[in-house]
């Protein structure tokens, strides 16, 4: 529009142009509604014993910071530079080549240039240079240094809670600079002065106390399982007796509580239960659930390394108490980043467990021999490969399925083909999304890392747009009507995202698909799928 005169009338009086040619340091942060999550409830912060619990609001001028907050931040910064080589290297080596700039789903979706990964990191780097480097101290702004101020702090808070720690930028960085690591450090520093969001702090407090993020007490957990037993009986005619908190079981199963308590994860949960029942009936394998360790997810990871460790400790503790051989982990994203890259280091060694071997196929899970936790996609892929499951895949014929690689299993683990192997063996119709949106280049759901709240819906919708756009493409091209994923946050976040962008596509976990196809010993002819929707050709029976 530079070469055009402003349009006449009302519009021309209004400023619909952003400020031009102003450096990012000179553009102060503007906290916008719909882009941030509510501040943490002081009760939760207090329960966890984290610093500076208080009522505060991001929209207020006064964040009620401790008087010496700058000192706390600076000291915390120094400590983390010594403790984490990753942090120190990432502060030092960025050349601002811009390769990461357009790889972030939040940048792509919101159009806010400060969501470029490089700038998110520069928010910390600018202060780092000012406080810790010679060049920054001498040359100041020309070396990209700036002083820590309240505005800078607010900018940190705003943008470190606009990152889902998905690591997509890290794939493209010539030095492997990982914005997830930057955001983790940024959030740790913010936590030191009590600046968290409630969607993280309260689940963490709940999880600490009741074993799961939703704060579900053990009897309610049991009630939910009983309900699933009834549902499954209606569908299959088989009454399950799931093991819960059972000592001497073979394997402990841990999955995110979202699967137990929130649709559509509940159908995936029913899928796990049916698979375990099948294995018990056919092979005598006992897999137990736990109410104490009823949360696979770990929102502590979005708080601080220490909080992550405090929550994660329950997994090994419960495995030890129950005397199981090894642990099986359900479908979850960041849970698996924690289990795969942190758990053994934090709370290992798990010498009281056995190196995991599938009791059914004899397969040794060599890649999990130290941590002793196997991903259920690995487990089921092995069962299928050895032809141990009786499957009627026509029961998934009404579904045209695509698969969303969840960020953490993709880029923090490399679990890409196991779930595909499972899906291809339980579904007839499977279609991949375009190559630059799957596998290690997968686009985030836009709601990870604790941002799956209601108040930041605009942020979530904008951030999830690149993913939704690819889903829309396969929906229009192949008629895809179901997206499978292996993450509980995905299962919670995608229904919202889809209902805004591609309402024709529904969300499932892969074990719902497995259980739809799985023929339980002695079951009746099914007329519906796990969602009690009629199977193809069974519409009349289902009505009865």
């Amino acid at each position, binding site marked *: 529009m530079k070469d055009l005169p402003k349009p006449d009338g009302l519009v021309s009086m209004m400023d619909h142009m952003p400020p031009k040619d102003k450096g990012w340091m000179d553009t102060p942060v503007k906290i916008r509604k719909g*882009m941030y999550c509510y501040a943490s409830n002081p009760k939760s912060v207090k329960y966890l014993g984290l610093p500076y619990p208080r009522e505060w609001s991001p929209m207020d001028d006064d964040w009620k910071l401790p008087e010496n907050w700058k000192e706390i931040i600076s000291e915390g910064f120094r400590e983390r530079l010594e403790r984490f080589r990753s942090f120190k290297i990432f502060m030092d080596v960025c050349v601002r080549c811009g390769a990461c700039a357009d790889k972030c789903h939040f940048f792509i979706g919101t159009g806010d240039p400060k969501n470029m990964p490089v700038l998110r990191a520069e928010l910390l780097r600018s202060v780092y240079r000012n406080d810790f480097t010679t060049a920054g101290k001498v040359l100041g702004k020309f070396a990209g240094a700036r002083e820590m101020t309240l505005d800078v702090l607010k900018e940190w808070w705003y943008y470190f809670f606009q990152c889902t720690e998905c690591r997509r930028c890290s794939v493209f960085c010539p030095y492997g600079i990982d914005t997830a690591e930057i955001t983790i450090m940024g959030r740790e520093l913010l936590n030191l002065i009590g600046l968290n969001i409630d969607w993280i702090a309260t689940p963490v407090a709940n999880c600490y106390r009741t074993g799961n993020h939703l704060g579900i007490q053990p009897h309610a957990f049991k009630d939910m399982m009983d309900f699933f037993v009834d549902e499954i009986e209606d569908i299959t005619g088989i009454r399950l007796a799931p093991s819960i908190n059972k000592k001497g079981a073979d394997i402990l199963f841990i999955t995110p509580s979202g699967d137990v*308590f*929130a*649709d559509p994860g509940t159908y995936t949960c029913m899928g796990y239960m049916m698979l375990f029942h099948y294995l018990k009936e056919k092979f005598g394998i006992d897999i137990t659930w736990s109410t104490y360790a009823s949360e696979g997810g770990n929102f502590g990871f979005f708080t601080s390394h220490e909080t992550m460790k405090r929550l994660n400790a329950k997994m090994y503790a419960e495995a030890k108490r129950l005397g199981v051989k090894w642990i099986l982990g359900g479908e979850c994203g960041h849970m698996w980043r924690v289990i795969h890259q942190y758990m053994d280091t934090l709370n290992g060694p798990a010498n009281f467990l056995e190196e995991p071997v599938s009791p059914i196929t004899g397969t040794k899970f060599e890649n999990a021999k130290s941590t002793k936790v196997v991903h259920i996609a690995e487990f089921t892929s092995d069962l299928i490969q050895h032809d141990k499951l009786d499957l009627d895949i026509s029961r998934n014929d009404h579904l045209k399925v695509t698969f969303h690689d969840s960020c953490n299993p993709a880029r923090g683990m490399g679990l890409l083909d196991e779930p595909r192997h499972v899906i291809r063996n339980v579904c007839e119709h499977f279609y991949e999304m375009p190559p630059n949106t799957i596998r290690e280049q997968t686009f985030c759901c836009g709601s990870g890392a604790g941002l799956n*709240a209601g108040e930041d819906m605009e942020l979530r919708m904008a951030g999830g747009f690149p993913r939704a756009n690819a889903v829309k493409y396969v929906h229009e091209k192949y008629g895809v009507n179901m997206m499978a994923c292996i993450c509980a946050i995905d299962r919670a976040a995608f229904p919202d995202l889809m209902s*805004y962008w591609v309402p024709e596509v529904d969300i499932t976990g892969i074990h719902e698909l497995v259980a739809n196809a799985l023929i339980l010993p002695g079951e009746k002819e099914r007329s519906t799928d796990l969602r009690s929707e009629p199977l193809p050709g069974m519409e009349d029976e289902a009505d009865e």
Partner: protein
Amino acid sequence: MMIEDLLEEKKSDIVERWFDAVIESYPDGTAHFLKNQKDLFANPVGSNIYSGLNALMDCLIKKHDETVIKDFLDPIIRIRAVQTMFSPSQATAFIFDLKKIIRDILKKELKNSETGDKLSSFERKIDDLGLIAFDLFMECREKIFELKANQEKTKVYRAFERAGLIVEIQED
């Protein structure tokens, strides 16, 4: 010559300028990327806006069917309705930019007063487009608020309700 034919002739030029006008509403650090990255999946915002504007221009020239127009306008408005850097007026202002762009491009032809009259009636269509955009914007915002309001209810609550764990207050 019909005004439609004239516009058809200049269509690609008009769409380019129109697209530029939308892109210019984004900050400096973003605009270049939105304009130049042509891959639909790497740049869904720019790509969808571009193809939307192109189709809308076709609609304006050829037929004027509200449902078709809605289909093409929807993706653009849907994107801008969640980009909170825009106020509602800023999000939809690009529609009215089209008038100015067309008048600029047809400067020479508009010296003929007959063409000018025809353009004025064509511009009514653009006004309609603005009104449709207003409807769509509201629909999108309502959807967002509905999602916000139902955030807890639709997932956790429904599962609990199905499980009979919620006790409704019974009438005596």
